[in-house]
């Protein structure tokens, strides 16, 4: 604990406090918000901020399930590929809605987690996420009059170029969606018009007919329009959906959660209050019971709180209610290592050792228990993280990080403070450690063992 140690600890504290400051006025180091690093050809740019989960900032969360059972038989695309394609499509749709910081993640193979902060309209979110937007053009079936059949292979919206909406008809009040096929479907579109000129083609969206216009003449390009009694809104929606592509598989909503932003803000306030009260209670107890070392442990605890919060902002950890609960819980556990050390310290002091020897002995003898106990908690949070979903993961993550950080603060920082204190003669009183002054004539005697052992 000599030499560089204290400087490193102090430096970490300064960096942590800098990270914790809500808004950086000085954008270090290269005038970008947060951290910007260039490692070879990898460029890391990360804004430093507290990431709040949906339950704390409000918004809509959907868990979507891939309805692979609804796929036509014989389709053998791996589910992970379908999942990835679906996420890309949803991502494009969300982007054109202008939602800031959406979360789109795969959970397992067959599910997608979608978080839309600030979106209050569940119905709209559900439509954007689950409308498959599978466009198909069917032609009259000669064997069954009045019915339509798919082309071979089906002519779908897969190769459409970006669509747009215009207003046609008298007074330009009739919105239509313009589309254009890209290669090779543009040629098939032209060929189809040659074959079926004078006959109707059916345009279906997700299996439902939108319109069935007659082909009046042979087309010269891959262009066409969809009319279907649209309103301005629904035409724009269709255009948006077509532009972002069709979902490769129908999706259904397995779970939807919606939180009003005001309720989230209230939850944040309550959690912060609970956290501060918890911290104060622990601090009061430590000082009352362990005196001077207890006070140092409180300093280490503050250090711990600052460092852990910085870790949450840097990693970054998305804080949820359960996550904050894990953090608060870890405050109590953070002092466990101190308790172990101080109990040993008292034992050593009572057995008549000098302060300095007792400190060293206490540290050495408490260390295995501390290491074991922290490892046990970290392992259980790993298990929770691995098996858990959503809430549970958040709790496990903050608990695990909290315990890992506390290991550092309790072992390194508290010890350093204890040793630093030895250089102040006024603080070298045994009574400050909650142990009676060394009685005369009883120097260096081993502790009396309880009878019978």
């Amino acid at each position, binding site marked *: 604990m000599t030499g560089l140690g204290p400087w490193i600890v102090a430096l970490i504290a300064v960096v942590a406090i800098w990270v914790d400051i809500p808004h950086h006025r000085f954008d270090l180091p290269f005038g970008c918000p947060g951290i910007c690093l260039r490692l070879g050809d990898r460029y890391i740019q990360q804004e430093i901020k507290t990431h709040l989960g949906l339950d704390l900032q409000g918004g809509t969360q959907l868990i979507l399930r891939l309805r692979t059972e609804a796929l036509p038989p014989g389709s053998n695309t791996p589910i992970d590929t379908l999942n990835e394609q679906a996420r890309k499509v949803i991502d494009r749709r969300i982007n054109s809605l202008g939602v800031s910081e959406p979360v789109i993640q795969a959970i397992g193979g067959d599910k997608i987690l979608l978080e839309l902060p600030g979106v209050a309209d569940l119905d709209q979110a559900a439509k954007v996420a689950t409308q498959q937007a599978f466009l198909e053009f069917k032609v009259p079936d000669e064997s069954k009059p009045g019915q339509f059949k798919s082309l071979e292979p089906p002519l779908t919206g897969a190769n459409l170029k970006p669509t747009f909406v215009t207003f046609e008809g008298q007074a330009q009040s009739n919105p239509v969606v313009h589309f254009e096929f890209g290669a090779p479907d543009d040629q098939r579109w032209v060929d189809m018009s040659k074959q079926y000129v004078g006959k109707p083609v059916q345009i279906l969206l997700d299996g439902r007919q939108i319109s069935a216009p007659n082909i009046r003449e042979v087309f010269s390009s891959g262009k066409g329009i969809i009319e279907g009694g649209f309103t301005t809104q629904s035409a724009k929606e269709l255009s948006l959906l077509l532009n972002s592509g069709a979902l490769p598989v129908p999706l259904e909503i397995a779970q939807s959660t919606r939180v009003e932003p005001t309720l989230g803000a209230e939850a944040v306030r309550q959690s912060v209050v609970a956290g501060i009260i918890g911290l104060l209670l622990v601090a009061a107890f430590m000082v009352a019971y362990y005196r001077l070392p207890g006070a140092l442990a409180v300093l280490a605890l503050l250090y711990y709180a600052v460092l852990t919060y910085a870790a949450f902002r840097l990693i970054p950890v998305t804080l949820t209610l359960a996550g904050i609960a894990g953090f608060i819980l870890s405050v109590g556990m953070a002092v466990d290592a101190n308790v172990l050390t101080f109990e040993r310290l008292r034992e050593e002091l009572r057995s008549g050792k000098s302060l300095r020897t007792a400190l060293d002995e206490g540290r050495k003898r408490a260390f295995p228990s501390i290491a074991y106990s922290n490892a046990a908690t970290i392992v*259980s949070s790993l298990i929770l993280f691995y098996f858990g979903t959503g809430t549970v993961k958040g709790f496990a993550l903050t608990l695990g990080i909290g315990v890992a950080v506390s290991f550092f603060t309790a072992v390194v920082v508290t010890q350093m403070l204890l040793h630093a204190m030895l250089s102040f003669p006024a603080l070298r009183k045994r009574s400050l450690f909650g142990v009676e002054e060394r009685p005369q004539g009883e120097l260096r005697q081993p502790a009396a063992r309880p009878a019978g052992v």
Partner: protein
Amino acid sequence: MLFRIVERKWWYFLFSGALLVPGIVFLMLGGLKPGIEFRGGTLLDLTFRTPPTSQEVYAVMNGLGHGDALVQRAEGGRMIVRMGQLTPEQEGAVERALEQRFAQDVDRSSQTVSPSFSAELVANAIRAVAAASILVVLLIAYAFRHLGWGAFRYGFAAMVAVVHDAVAVLGAFAILGHFLGVEVDSLFVTAVLTIIGFSVHDTIVVFDRIRENQKLYPGEALNPVINFAVMQTMVRSVITSLTTLLPLLAMYGFGGYSTRYFALALIVGLVSGSYSSIFNAAQVVSLWQEIEDKLRGRPRGAAPAAV
């Protein structure tokens, strides 16, 4: 100062039994009340500026064809409505109807879980608890790997303590569910898993000291060794539980309703865990030894076979 901790073991077992039996009865009669996550359906959490009566809210739900809705008042002028699964469209219709009927903005949170997904969540929860139990057994086996077959008694005792604590929490929530309608969700499962972790850990600390003392004082009878080990670890165990308990109490009192019962589950488990690690776990080891002595016809209180 030395308590006769082992000698009074039957009193401690009796105390545990008195606390656990009511919970076990309620677990067997009614069991735990599954929350929306584990049952499926829709839950609306409504906050009104001027709260209407639950009958008025029910009338709106019924008018929209959701006659199965259960409307409950909750703290802070909130109204909790539970019903079968609503589609997003239906949910929007309900929300619009409520705002229209009561002529005010209604702060709404809602959760809808499809029945198939809730079945999956239940299966996940069961899998997590099963995995944790297996890991607990492995952890105990590892902690006492040097003892050979002698480890059985320790492993058995640690398992007794874990089951004790898990039953304490499950029982408490079965009772709360019966009388206050408290439901269990994935946070509750998290609490149970966390408690299992705490419990094993607390117990292993005591057993470690027993082992350490047996090495230090070879030839000593088991019961005094256990007494001494429990005494040595008791202070630490109580204080650590206390410092963990304090933030949990703050969370219970001030942390808002979403995490209140989570904090409560942890509090119950933590208190039970401290009790069982001090007053039950080592006592079970002692009991095992006494039964073994009796069966083998060894005098009571003699030194155990080499450990």
